[in-house]
């Protein structure tokens, strides 16, 4: 498999975009904090009976209304700290920490 793409080359470049999953369960984001790199995607999936609605605290991005088992995907384009909440249940909060310092590449090699 690696031979086709030249495994060595892939391993030495910046890490490939990853997909992170945040479950919404029992009125909480789990995990509440995630660390990503720009270019990664974050998927929120609602495992509660009732609808939730993910929104950055400053409203810069927002999901759709997420019913049970519905999910929403965000492409993280930039670095930064993003505090988000549920619009319907604002006591539910979470944080996306987006860092372009290649922390993941270092930790994996």
């Amino acid at each position: 498999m690696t031979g086709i793409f030249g495994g060595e080359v892939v391993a030495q470049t910046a890490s490939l975009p990853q997909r992170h999953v945040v479950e919404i369960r029992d009125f909480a984001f789990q995990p509440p904090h995630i660390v990503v790199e720009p270019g990664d995607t974050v998927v929120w999936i609602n495992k509660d009976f009732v609808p939730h609605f993910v929104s950055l605290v400053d409203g810069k991005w927002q999901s759709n209304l997420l019913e049970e088992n519905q999910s929403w995907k965000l492409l993280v384009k930039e670095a930064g700290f993003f505090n988000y909440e549920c619009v319907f249940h604002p006591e539910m909060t979470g944080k996306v920490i987006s860092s372009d310092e290649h922390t993941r590449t270092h930790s994996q090699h």
Partner: protein
Amino acid sequence: MNILQSFTNVALVGTIFLSGMVTTGCAADSMMKDKTMTKEAPAFNDLEIAHIAYTAGALDIRYAHLALALSENPEVKKFAELMIRDHTAINNKALALVKKLNITPQDNAMSQQLVKGGEDILKEFSQLRGNDFSKRYAANELGYHTLVVKTIDETFLKIAQNEELKTLLRGANKTFKVHQGHAETMNANAEKL
């Protein structure tokens, strides 16, 4: 905050829930007691519990629609929208379970008293405007959710037999506890109006 007042405000509904708890608590010897004390109410079966839970949710949705129509208070309106959204989702979940299990929820004295008590509260709500409405609605919602949470935890979850019904009740009660928390805040703010 005046919790006692809140309970008085939902006195009718409260009496029903509490009497349900009392009679189920001593179901075994209820036959021995004075009829006027126990009203012959036996412990609820699963079909009755499903009916009561659904009826209570539907009632809260009706209160919320009235709140949207009568209140100008943003916090009250937001809470009412939350009630409609969440209780609708949970009642739909209950309907799906009813369909899956191919059962028919059973009407019962507690459901009937809930409806009757609810009609009286709706009538009273409809006479109120502005802050009077907000205060009354907030107090009622707090008392209502407090009692629902307690009844599910202390009675329904103890006597329900079907595991799927219990799972539904547990999940629903997590939601109702969140509502209770929101209602506490709304009620505290309404009392300052």
